[in-house]
């Protein structure tokens, strides 16, 4: 069966510090991978998605970046965090075209102080 792992689960980072959130998927090949952000009590904002290794599409301009060094690994990074980067970050995967089920990881709570 397929599983998705995302870490760390929670982190508190000072403004201006770097960020690295990592996500891996097991049990499937060539998944579509996603990073979403959810501000407290708000909806899901798609940040990045990837249909293959090295293929990253950015949906929202920001100081974040994403990389996909391996087929089932997706990394969200920042060189310098802003206060507004605080939120709940969700990694997710799907297969095939849009409209197929999206499976979310447990999420990472980021607080920038």
């Amino acid at each position, binding site marked *: 069966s397929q599983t998705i792992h995302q870490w760390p689960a929670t982190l508190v980072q000072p403004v201006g510090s770097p960020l690295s959130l990592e996500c891996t998927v097991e049990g499937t090949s060539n998944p579509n991978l996603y990073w979403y952000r959810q501000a407290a009590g708000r*909806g*899901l904002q*798609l940040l990045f998605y990837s249909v293959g290794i090295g293929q990253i599409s950015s949906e929202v301009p920001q100081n974040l970046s994403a990389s996909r060094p391996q087929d089932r690994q997706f990394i969200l990074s920042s060189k310098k965090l802003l206060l507004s980067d605080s939120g709940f970050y*969700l990694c997710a995967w799907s297969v*095939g075209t*849009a*409209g197929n089920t999206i499976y979310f990881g447990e999420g990472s709570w980021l607080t920038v102080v």
Partner: protein
Amino acid sequence: GQQVMQIPQYQHVQEGEDFTTYCNSSTTLSNIQWYKQRPGGHPVFLIQLVKSGEVKKQKRLTFQFGEAKKNSSLHITATQTTDVGTYFCAATRLHNTNAGKSTFGDGTTLTVKP
């Protein structure tokens, strides 16, 4: 970009009352999905609707897809405290099924008073 409007944003009900959330699109959809996110958790897939006028049921939950495939609803009969959470729709526009092109509504947060 594709706009998906979900209403209401919040709904507070007494346990036993019914609850409905609506998802509306200005464009014809290929399909629509519904997800539930419990407080502090992550969204979990509930169901997918594909056909015009489709109705699906999961116990006390009834999902409908409009005849024009532009809107959908989720109805919960006789809510229970276990129904609390945020319900999201995710819509895929017809003829635009590239990965990343599903759009989530902003969600409806349901609270249930015992």
